[in-house]
């Protein structure tokens, strides 16, 4: 693999950039692999990368029904943070943060991880209590997170409207300075390039149509649009389509897939320095390097695989943004799109072995999977390679829905009074 650097770029300028090689190959599938990953999104590609890099498992195929990075990886609002409440969650997301820091160098691909800070606004007494609880829990867990008064929040994010006269005045904010954004496509491409370089076959336009199990119930291979592929280990990393893929192996999942919308404005000069999220009034916003305001909306209320959503969701998202940042009312929406997010009952992911031997599943990231990409891939690779979970993902089983040991991030933000 040709290493990327400024020097290399300058050198190639002299040859009119005619000599850059492929970032990844377009191989035909082999008859057999040690591991087959279903889904070439960020999580799937990261899994393959770490399988090769950390575990020496290089005879790996990543099968993708469309184009790599084309699902939620390429459709999300690119927020990175780890200030989750429960120790289990914080450990998982913080593991990812540790990997984000240095990921560009690790992959030799600029993923543009920008620790510009993620600020989560509190608008009510209850919000303040919840935020404080997060901050205290995070401090004990070694996760950076701090409390800002409205004035401090305004100083950190000057466009913020901290007037007492708005419908839900800002009472303060939790700020995670190491939180921020990264360039979504670059994450998928960087992992793809790195994995490919170590021998992983990334096979695009290759729909999986079946998972073959032997007499003992164990996985024997996958049926695909490009023929049968033999393998003893299958890792399903199919986000919104997980239920359907797991159905092929006869495993029922506690998942529902919802449309999630996001949108960007036309690009403008720097207008917004960080990421701001508000759970109470349902909006989050940042500005991309290109200058677009990147705004996340909520999910529609019904299951759908349409990758579109209703305008009422957009209306509510934008009215919330305009309430917090009233001068953005004259900005204009450039593009709106939708993804399919797979949501578990406790809003925490499943990263786990399954009742089927040789079948592993990584799903349920809901609206927040992008931030976990490196950490998720890292521990999932461990789980597949060792046939047992890494200590970090050990709590994220399917079984927890039977026993009741939920990791309930949604409940922890329950509405009070």
């Amino acid at each position, binding site marked *: 693999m040709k290493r990327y650097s400024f020097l290399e770029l300058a050198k190639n300028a002299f040859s009119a950039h005619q000599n850059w090689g*492929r970032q990844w190959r377009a191989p035909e599938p082999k008859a057999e692999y040690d591991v087959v990953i279903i889904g070439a999104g960020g999580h799937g590609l990261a899994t393959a990368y770490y399988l090769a890099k950390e575990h020496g498992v290089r005879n790996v195929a990543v099968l993708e029904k469309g*184009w790599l990075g084309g699902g939620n990886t390429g459709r999300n609002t690119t927020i990175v943070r780890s200030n989750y409440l429960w120790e289990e969650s914080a450990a998982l997301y913080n593991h990812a943060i540790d990997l984000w820091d240095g990921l560009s160098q690790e992959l030799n691909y*600029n993923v543009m991880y920008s620790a510009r800070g993620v600020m989560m606004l509190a608008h009510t007494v209850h919000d303040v209590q919840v935020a*404080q609880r997060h901050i205290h829990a995070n401090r004990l867990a070694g996760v950076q997170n701090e409390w800002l008064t409205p004035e401090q929040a305004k100083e950190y994010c000057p466009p913020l409207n901290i007037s007492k006269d708005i419908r839900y005045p800002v009472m303060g904010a939790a700020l995670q300075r190491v939180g921020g954004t990264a360039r979504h*496509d670059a994450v998928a491409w960087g992992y793809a390039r790195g994995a490919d370089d170590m021998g992983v076959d990334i096979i695009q336009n290759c729909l999986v149509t079946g998972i073959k199990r032997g007499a003992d119930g164990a996985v024997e291979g996958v049926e695909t649009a490009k023929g049968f592929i033999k393998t003893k280990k299958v890792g399903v990393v199919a986000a919104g389509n997980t239920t359907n893929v797991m159905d092929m192996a006869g495993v029922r999942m506690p998942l529902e897939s919802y449309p999630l919308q996001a949108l960007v404005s036309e690009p*403008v000069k720097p207008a917004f320095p960080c990421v701001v999220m508000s759970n109470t009034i349902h909006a989050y916003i940042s500005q991309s390097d290109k200058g677009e305001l990147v705004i996340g909306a909520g999910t529609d209320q019904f299951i759908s695989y349409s990758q579109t959503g209703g305008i009422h969701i957009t209306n509510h998202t*934008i*009215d919330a943004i305009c309430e917090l940042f009233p001068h953005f009312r004259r900005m204009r929406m450039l593009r709106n799109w939708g993804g399919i997010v797979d949501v578990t009952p406790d809003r925490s992911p499943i990263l786990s072995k399954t009742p089927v031997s040789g079948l592993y599943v990584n799903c349920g990231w809901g609206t927040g999977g992008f931030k976990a990409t490196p950490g998720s891939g890292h521990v999932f690779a461990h789980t597949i390679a060792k046939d047992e979970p890494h200590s970090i993902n050990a709590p994220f089983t399917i079984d927890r829905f039977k026993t009741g040991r939920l990791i309930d991030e949604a409940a922890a933000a*329950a509405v009070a*009074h």
Partner: protein
Amino acid sequence: MSQPFRTEKGGRIDRGQQLTFTFDGEEMQGHKGDTLASALLANGVHLVGRSFKYHRPRGIVTAGSEEPNALVGVYRKGDQTPNLRATQVEVYQGLEAISQNRFPSLGFDVGAVNDLLSPLFPAGFYYKTFMWPKAFWDRVYEPVIRAAAGLGKPPKNPDHDTYGNIYAHCDVLVAGSGPAGLAAAVAAAETGAKVILCDEQAEFGGSLLSDENATIDGKPPAEWVRDTIVKLQGMDNVTLLSRTTAFGYFAHNYIALAERVTEHVSDPDPKLPRERLWQVRAKEVVIASGAIERPMVFPENDRPGILLADAGRTYLNRYGVKVGNKVLIATACDTAWQAAFDLADHGVDVVAIADLRETPPENLVAIAQARGIRVEAGCVVTGTLGRKRVKAALLGRLMTSGQVASAGQVACDAILMSGGWTPTVSLYSQSRGKVVWDETVGAYVPGKSVQHERSAGAAKGLYGLQATLEDGYAAGEAAAKAAIGKEAKVTYAAASGGEAGQGAVLGALPHDRNASRVKAFVDYQNDVTAKDIKLAAREGMQSIEHIKRYTTTGMATDQGRLSNMNALSIASGALEKPIVDVGLTTFRLPYTPTTFGLFAGVARGDHFDPVRKTPSHDWVVANGGVYEDVGQWKRTWYFPKSGEDMHAAVARECATVRESVGLFDASTLGKIEVVGPDAAEFLERMYTNPWKKLAPGRCRYGLMLNDAGFIVDDGVIGRLADDRFHVTTTTGGAPSVFATMEDYLQTEWPDLDVWITSTTEQYAVAAVQGPKAREVIAPFIEGIDLSADPFPHMSVKEGTFCGVPCRLFRISFTGELGFEINVPRRHGKMTWETLAGEIEKHNGTAYGTETMHVLRAEKGYIIVGQDTDGTVTPQDAGMSWAIGKKKHDFVGKRGLERPDLVAENRKQFVGLLTKDPKVKLEEGAQITVAQNPATGTPAEGHVTSSYYSPAMGRTIALAIVKNGHALHGKSLYVPMPDGSIEVEVTSPIFFDKEGARLNV
């Protein structure tokens, strides 16, 4: 010098109305009917902006909403709106426009250095560098990139304009008012169908407004348009919306339109909304969005003065503006020849027509020759000269070998180009239809309809005036028939002229220049060149989506409307795959950029979300109460007297309630009337507690779980009669409790004879709490004996308060003697003010939610959502007593039996007392066994509530702690940044453990 490029006559502008406007501070003249673009061109201004990446000088390219270059900021009321297309901005008296993305000026832009450095900045260069040193990315590189990126400057001040909204229904929505759209609207309207016709432009007519050669029914097209519009205006069933863009096509034939109401007016009436969102449910939609012309991809095709041929014709015929004095036509398509003829007829020197084709149609050549225009067949532009304005073009001759031989240079001050036409399939694509490649049209056209829509005319690749009109009529008839089942006899208008043009080209054109040195732009705004697309393909980007994302082609503010087809073609060549195998990026909404304010509409301030107030509101405001937001409700938080802070006010309120009496507004609590013979059975199933034996006139605390076994709500429930219960819920939980009850009732137990009715707002509730509570209410209550024996703690009776009916509860959330007076809401203000007056006499106080929280915490009562968080069971909360032990089932019972819910080490509800009684714990603080736990130590639990307790004369706290019930008396720690706080685990009941004060 005034408008040197304005024609002598012609055009649709109002020459009688001269308007003054400024561009970058320079004053210029235009006319009513001008766009900013046409007015600038009339003044000879082509250079209007700088490109995104290389900051190259750019000019106006189009005459429509697809304009990629001419983006301007418009100042109004001291603030600017960025990125408006000069081709859409209508000139009004005093319009102030500025150019963007340049510093210090449009003419001299330091950012243009990027153009010189461009060899270093190929597609995706930023993925390959800026990685060292690591810390430099977000501190050094990124800020520089950000400052250079972006286009216009963001608005600075809050927007005071208003935005309207209208929900509309129609039988047939027609989007676009060119020949096909107008014909469709007429045909549909004739059947009596309700029709909405919208067009993004100020005037209806589309391409007909710039056609001076054809006739329809013997009239010039513009005249036919006028007559047709007059006719439609006269029909009650037709709504005409100009300046209205159909920007979004959603599921179930739901279409969003953006109407610009005042933006074109110099001094609009502030009562009018700036824009209006139309949300239309249409039975059928006719998409008549036309087609747009394609640029040609030749080296230096981006210089100011290079426009699309049809734009040149539009500026001439519609706006009376010549794009130049010496114009070169570069084309591969017949239609551009008409532009040449029109220009020549207006006295413009058409220096040559360079047609890519070896043999352009003879009739066209003959007409050109008759006008003395030089015709170069098999000829291609291979480059251009001029920095801020094109001054010459290099021509090349296509050889049979495929090579290009230089054919000299031709001086010109404008080039009009045409690579053919691309149907506008955005709306169709948004409707989730799949476009299909049509080889004869040489474009993607709409395929099968997925929703109730049909495309008509050029939007589906059908060209030629007569054919377009006919297709429009047919589409309108078909749409009306599908919508309302009616047909009408429509006389089709007959056209002559406006024939469909032949010929087209896709992708980069051959040239004889040094390929590594020249730039042929595909996406103007984002500075994507043919080379960039080829590089992406070389680097393994195989999907068009990858190429788009890697090069950013098609991601500019025109969303690829000009560039997509050329990009696809170049990618197809580079990947050696047929164009259809390269794929097509999805058209996303909005069709053109759409103002945020339009989506937000009236939702701002108090109209952002309903502000729900209780009847005490006016009194509270008058008495200085401080509100907190609880859901949509305003609840009084505390009542500071002058000079008091929150702490002092709450301490006083707490003490007063315990000493004498307090008045609290409990109106926001949810109330549900459960009525019917099976009412008790229903509650038996919904709540953990037993209800069947509760006597009428008595109350009980009820605990509600979800079927997973966790606490979700609580409240006091009073039995008014055998078949009638008054249920209370938490304030925030009211809607969800009601919905949950309906769910079980309708879908699990439809056989039960019981109904539920929300009465939250039927009653206002005043809680009078404290030793003197009875004395306070006694003077006003009739029909109820308030003494302890007939009316003990946990009772409910109906009587009157000041003569109005009331439901009086004897209940307490404070641990004191307490009453809650429920009166019909309209009497709530009177009730509150009467009681507020009365408590004064007893040295009592009104108190807010904070004091309520302290008082209940002293008693160890939980607040659902604060002391519980959706993971707490009744056992965890120490409330096993609330579970009806003999009940076979209730919601949550089975869930409670799951392994983890009965496991050891669950977190349980306890009290905490700090060793130092003055130290108040922070809510949310974590609890550990170790005094100084190492980072990463799992917490034993957390502080859920923490207050200064006046009754205890010290701080108190509530918490959930692992195995807490077994730890009473033990020490734990609350590690804080400035040191660890030692706490003792206690019972959560701090005050009046026996409850003696309740039963008086």
